[in-house]
Each structure stands twice: as C-alpha cells, then as structure tokens.
C-alpha cells in the first residue's frame, strides 16, 4: 500500500515541451522520433498561442519552456528567436540539443536570451558510437566542438547520457568522462524501447543493479557532479528514513504538454507525439490553434488513453512496492512495451527505477 497522496493530473503544468522542428541532423541508432528527416517547422502563431497560456502560469510559479525536437538549433537563430519572442521574460527557456551546431554565434544567442542548455552525449567515443550523423559517421567530434564553444563562453550545461549496455565497468568510464567534461549535472537514461526504436530493452537484473551501484561508488569518490538518479534516490531514501515519504512526489502528475510543430498537444509523454494507433488515435488532446492550451490541459484527463493511463497508475499503486519512488510506470513505456496504458511494470521501470533503487541500496550494503 502506497504512502503517496499523488492522484490524477494537475490542471497546471510546470513546463511545456516545444517542437520547433521535427528535423534532426543526427541519426542516433536508438532515437524514438518518427519524422526526424523532415523539416516541419513550428510557425510563430503556434508559439504565440502557447505563450498565451504559459505567461499566465509563469506569473504564479517558476515555469520552463523546453525547446526540444528534433534538434531545436536546426531551425536557426532567427526563427528560434521569433518563436521565443511571444513569451513573457519571466519564462525560463531551455534547449536540449545534440550540441553539433553550437558555435560562437549560437553561444552568444543563448547567453543573450538567457537560455539554459542541456546537451545529449553518451560518453567517450567508444561509448558515444550510437550517436551518428546522417552519413552514419560518429558525431563525437562535432559534439565536442559544441562543448568547446560552451566552455569558451562560460555557459553552464547539463548532460543527458543514454546507456544501451548498463553493466559493470561502464559507469566508472562514464562518470570520469562527464566529471572532466565540465557539465554541472548528469542525467543517465537507460535506452528505452519506444517510438521507432524497436530494440529490446530487457536487461539482466544483476548487470543493471551493478551499473547503478558502481555509478554511486564513482560519484562518492569525487561528488563534483550532481547525478540526477543518485540525487532522486537519496531524496526518496532520506524521506523513507524520516517518515516523510508523502512529501516526495507531487500531489498530482504534471501534465507535461508537448506542443508539436503544428500545434497538436500530447500530454504526459513527449514520445507519443507524432504517433497514431488504431485503438487510441493520434494521442492528442487538442491543438493550440483551435483551443486555448490551458483548456486543453485542464481537460486532458478526459482523453481516452489518459483515463486508461490513470487506471494503470492506480494499479501500480496497488501492486508495486516501488510506487512511492516513481509514481507509476510512464505512459510511453507502457504503450510502446505493452501496447496499452493500464499495464504495470515495464522494462523501463525495472532498468531505471527498481534496479536504480536496489543498486543504490546494494552500494550502501557493501561499502
């Protein structure tokens, strides 16, 4: 039985994810995006419609607009500036970029517009081999040129790293690489089966637990980096020991509206944007060019697949001893692994939640 009081979906998000273009100049082997060869660009009226809602939300709380993609820098500075212009200055802007297009001009733009930067890189060349360009050649050198530009301009950045082979030995390499890269924060995503990436993400339990335990071990030797997964796990662990578990999760799920290039809105899982299914349709809850975003979000719990997802969350709550740690399996992982939204434990749950927590506990037990 869970201690968390988190139920339902909040009518107000903490951030929105914007798709300024579907295009990506890379062709990473594990990418989930369906239309990344096509340059379908978000027109300014879509951004203006989103800003109408976001500016109101940002008046009451810290609010982020995350320019995702595709590769968000692929739209060019002029168009990205046009898309950002409708938003109130209180809004935080973030780009999640593959870094290959970053140069001095882009860094000046990011600094001028006070854009926070997250880059995607998987480690040293041998661990970054799945990040390739359209010709199939490694993107590592281009990524490092982008990182060098960020360093020259003293722009802080975080990193999201995808790990396809979590096992002993890998975490040590990765932590040392990212420690030396100069990022502030590291997030580690175990590869997921979703979207157009149909590769299995079933992994051996002992390998993944050992990976996470080793990451804690490395981090503990030199904790200069903030590692998202370790921070979260220790926050949860501290709450359990203090008897305050209900303070860990929010009261309600963040709806996390993703705004596709054409204004379509998909809540909860950005990975569902651009897909369709005979049973669930195109997963959208509306389009900002026809309906105010605030209204779409407020009514999103009425979307058929979202109702099914919320049933699935309640099943997780009833069945899973890790529920208070994660808040339930995620929508995209349920759908792409199980073909429905009311299932429970996914491979993603196992790799990135259950084995993470158990790996941290393994470290604590044996060190």
């Amino acid at each position, binding site marked *: *039985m869970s201690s968390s009081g988190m139920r339902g979906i909040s009518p107000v998000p903490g951030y929105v994810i914007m798709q300024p273009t579907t295009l990506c100049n890379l062709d990473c082997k594990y990418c989930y995006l369906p239309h990344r060869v096509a340059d379908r660009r978000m027109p300014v009226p879509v951004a203006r419609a989103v800003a109408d809602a976001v500016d109101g939300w940002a008046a009451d709380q810290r609010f982020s607009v995350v320019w995702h993609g595709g590769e968000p820098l692929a739209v060019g500075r002029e168009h990205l500036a046009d898309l950002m212009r409708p938003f109130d200055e209180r809004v935080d802007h973030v780009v999640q970029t593959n870094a290959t297009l970053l140069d001095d001009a882009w860094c000046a733009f990011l600094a001028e517009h006070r854009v926070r930067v997250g880059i995607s890189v998987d480690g040293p060349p041998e661990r970054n081999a799945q990040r390739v360009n359209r010709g199939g050649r490694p993107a590592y050198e281009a990524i490092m040129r982008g990182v060098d530009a960020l360093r020259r301009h003293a722009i802080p950045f975080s990193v999201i790293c995808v790990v396809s082979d979590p096992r002993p030995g890998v975490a040590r390499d990765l932590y040392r690489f990212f420690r030396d890269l100069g990022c502030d924060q590291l997030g580690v995503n175990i590869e997921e089966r979703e979207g157009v990436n149909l590769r299995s993400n079933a992994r051996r339990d002992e390998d993944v637990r050992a990976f996470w335990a080793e990451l804690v071990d490395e981090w503990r030797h030199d904790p200069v980096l903030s590692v*998202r*997964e370790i921070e979260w796990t*220790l926050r949860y662990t501290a709450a359990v020991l203090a008897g305050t578990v209900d303070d860990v999760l929010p009261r309600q799920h963040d709806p996390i509206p993703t705004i596709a290039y054409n204004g379509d809105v998909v809540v909860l899982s950005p990975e569902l944007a651009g897909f369709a299914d005979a049973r669930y349709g195109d997963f959208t809850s509306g389009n900002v060019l026809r309906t105010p975003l605030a209204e779409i979000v407020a009514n999103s719990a009425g979307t058929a697949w979202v109702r099914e997802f919320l049933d699935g969350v309640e099943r997780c709550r009833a069945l899973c001893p890790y529920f*208070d740690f994660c*808040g339930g399996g995620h929508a995209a992982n349920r759908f792409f692994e199980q073909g429905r939204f009311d299932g429970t434990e996914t491979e993603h749950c196992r790799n*990135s939640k259950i084995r993470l927590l158990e790996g*941290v506990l393994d470290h*604590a037990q044996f060190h």
Partner: protein
Amino acid sequence: MRNSTDPVIRRMESLRPALATLIAEADVARRDRTSPDRSGGEQVATLSAFEDAFPTFYQFSNRPR
C-alpha cells in the same frame, strides 16, 4: 501507509546507518557544489538543482508543489 512488512522499506531500514552516511555525504557535496565560490558568486538552486537542469526528465521532475 507503508510499514515494516514492505520488502523495500524493510531493506532500507536494515541499511539505515549506511544510508544515513550516504545521505549526509550527498548533502555536503550539494552544498559544496552550490557554494558561491564554485558558482562564480551566484547562489544557485540546491535541492531542486537537478530538476531545474532537467525539466525534460519528466519521470523524476514532477516538481513537488
């Protein structure tokens, strides 16, 4: 309400001293990372730093309200 019959909670309780040490070390590391010396004189977010850095990571960034 979770209790001591829950296997996850039971394991954490059994590791309480080791976990308390780990949590304390993480607190110190977090303070060191966000000290004005390291952040160029600018005070930066502490406990929510990773959530601020990763708003896209919805799995863990359902920001507590």
